[in-house]
């Protein structure tokens, strides 16, 4: 589904991604872990098309389409979804109006008719229930007045509504208490299928107790330094990242 080849990207002239390679197949859940500053969030931003990051070389393909040539909105319409680490509050834009606009823009792109209001509201209700997100959304501005946990849950709810091919969760677990973590994870587990794929960026192993990954990748210094199964996450939890740094240094020297 997704193929990242030797991706390099920089922000304000500083290179952060230094040749990332990653293959993601439909139905797969990939966890990306790594120490602070290793480029995890940069990778998420670059995939979603954040204009603050400059891709200097490499390729990203989504089901045969060149993602890097697309504007952020077209990537979303093609089925890329980024659950933001810091969801933005937009006073004056209502949650419902925002979602409906997004939904219809995506449908128009796919040559589908706009959704009827009634049908849309029914879907909102269903998906809210599915991801256990009971915050009142009507007559409320986008993310305004939401707690940190509610904002993250709103991201998962949007994910449920927009039903993307590829979902990238950028530290969705940060700032969540154990209950919220369980709810968010349950949501993701209900949404996963053999048609979609998830990239889960996280610092901590604990999220992976709930969402079991097929692959764990360690991003270090802008490159994927190690790939393994779910047991790699446990190993990292136990040993930290220092042993990897040593290994990377040795590799460099060799």
């Amino acid at each position, binding site marked *: 589904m997704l193929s990242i080849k030797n991706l390099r990207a920089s922000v304000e002239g500083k290179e952060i991604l230094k040749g990332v390679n990653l293959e993601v197949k439909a139905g797969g859940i990939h966890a990306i872990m790594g120490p602070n500053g290793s480029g995890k969030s940069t990778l998420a931003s670059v995939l979603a098309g954040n204009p603050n990051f400059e891709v200097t070389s490499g390729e990203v393909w989504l089901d045969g389409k060149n993602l890097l040539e697309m504007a*952020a909105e077209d990537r979303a319409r093609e089925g890329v979804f980024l659950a933001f680490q810091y969801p933005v509050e937009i006073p004056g834009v209502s949650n419902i109006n925002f979602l409906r606009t997004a939904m219809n*823009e995506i449908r128009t792109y796919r040559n589908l008719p706009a959704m009827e209001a009634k049908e849309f509201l029914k879907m909102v209700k269903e998906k809210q229930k599915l991801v256990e997100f009971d915050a009142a959304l009507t007559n409320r501005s986008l993310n305004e007045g939401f707690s940190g946990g509610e904002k993250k849950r709103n991201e998962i709810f949007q994910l449920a509504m927009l039903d993307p091919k590829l979902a990238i969760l950028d530290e969705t677990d940060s700032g969540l208490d154990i209950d919220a973590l369980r709810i968010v994870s349950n949501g993701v587990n209900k949404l996963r299928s053999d048609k979609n794929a998830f990239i889960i960026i996280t610092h901590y192993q604990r999220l992976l107790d709930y969402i079991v990954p097929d692959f764990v990748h360690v991003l270090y210094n802008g490159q994927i330094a190690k790939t393994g199964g779910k047991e790699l996450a446990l190993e990292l939890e136990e040993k930290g990242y220092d042993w990897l740094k040593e290994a990377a240094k040795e590799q460099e020297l060799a």
Partner: protein
Amino acid sequence: MIKQITNSLYDQFIADFELRSILSNASESLALHALRKEAFKQFKQLGFPNTKVEDWKYINLSPFLKDDFLTAAEDETIVINKDIIDSAKIKKLGAYHIVMVNGRYQAGLSDTIPGDEVFVSPLAAAMDRPAFEAHFGKNVALDKNHFAALNTALFRDGLFIEIKARIIVEKPIHVIHIISSANTLFLQPRNLFVIGAGADGIIVESFITVNHPEKNAKVFVNDVSEIIVNERARLQHFCIQTGAEHTSYVHHTEVVQRQSSAYNNYKASFPGTALLRNNLNVSLNGENVESHLYGLYLVAGRQIVDNHTTVDHLKPNCHSNELYKGVMKDEGVAIFNGKILVRKDAQKTNAFQKNNNLMLSKKAVVDSKPQLEIFADDVKCSHGSTIGQFDEDALFYLKARGIGEEKAKALLIHAFAFDVTGKIPITALQTYINHLIEEGLN
């Protein structure tokens, strides 16, 4: 050279006034006659303001005053019909409609308001009413306001609205001001609205231009409205300004509030009209007065929109709040000059003011000037002003959900305006103004 052109219009008004004095209007009282004379004296001294006058330093008026204006024209044939009025109505507002064409009341096109609790008439026909005698011309400072002085000296007619004491008028009064002329006109309408003690009303004024079948000539409107909000009265006052490029306006609105009254002014200005200068002065002349001033301006093309407001706190325990928001396109120019005056007696005043501007174009210009003058020592006052661009994080968030650039920007502009539009307590008006924002953006 330009000065001479302006001078010729000045000379024309001097001649107009002298001619008028000879043909003295018998229906006007001696008091009004004296007021006109005094106003004329002031205008003669002041002339038209140039950019050396502090309150006019951001606008060069010469290009707007250089045309060959008819200043004392006979009435033209009115070409406004029912269909035009219908299209100017606001859906679902359920209002009484009062139609003014080129500053003149149109009885045939206006609704009649049943009963005698609300009195609406041409100003010239209301001069013998006690409310006229009590309030007319009492509140405008003629020595500081060039255009208001000229209007006072030479106005011919306008609109008079009186809501009697303790009357609650549920239906809004929608005044549709239409400009349509094949002649180059300088119009000077004069209005007086008096809200009786304990009364409650809603006045919606919309300003539009209608194409004249022959041709569209330039029209300069210099109007003055005096508004008296008596003890315990409430007035919600909306001004929706649209129009075509061949029209220019200098509006002067003078509001006087008595004890425990509430006045809300909502001003929404849209692209079209070449020049919009809004002078809005509110005197909080009584205790426990509340005033809210909300403004929204969407400026496009080479339009100039200038809002000059003065909120004058004269008595203790009053509250005023002012919020003006601007969206700037193309080569638009906006000026915001907001003055809060807290007099020595006005202890326990709460006075707030904010002006925010969103720049959509590199060529647009905003001059924002908040002014606070405080002479009392126990007050809460604040003011702030910002000029900024789109929030890139918000824009990216919307795009990352599949919303295209144009639509995302439109959403953010609506959100920016929502601080003002969200304050409009009447849904039909909110919808109407949101629709005008949408139109103005395209």
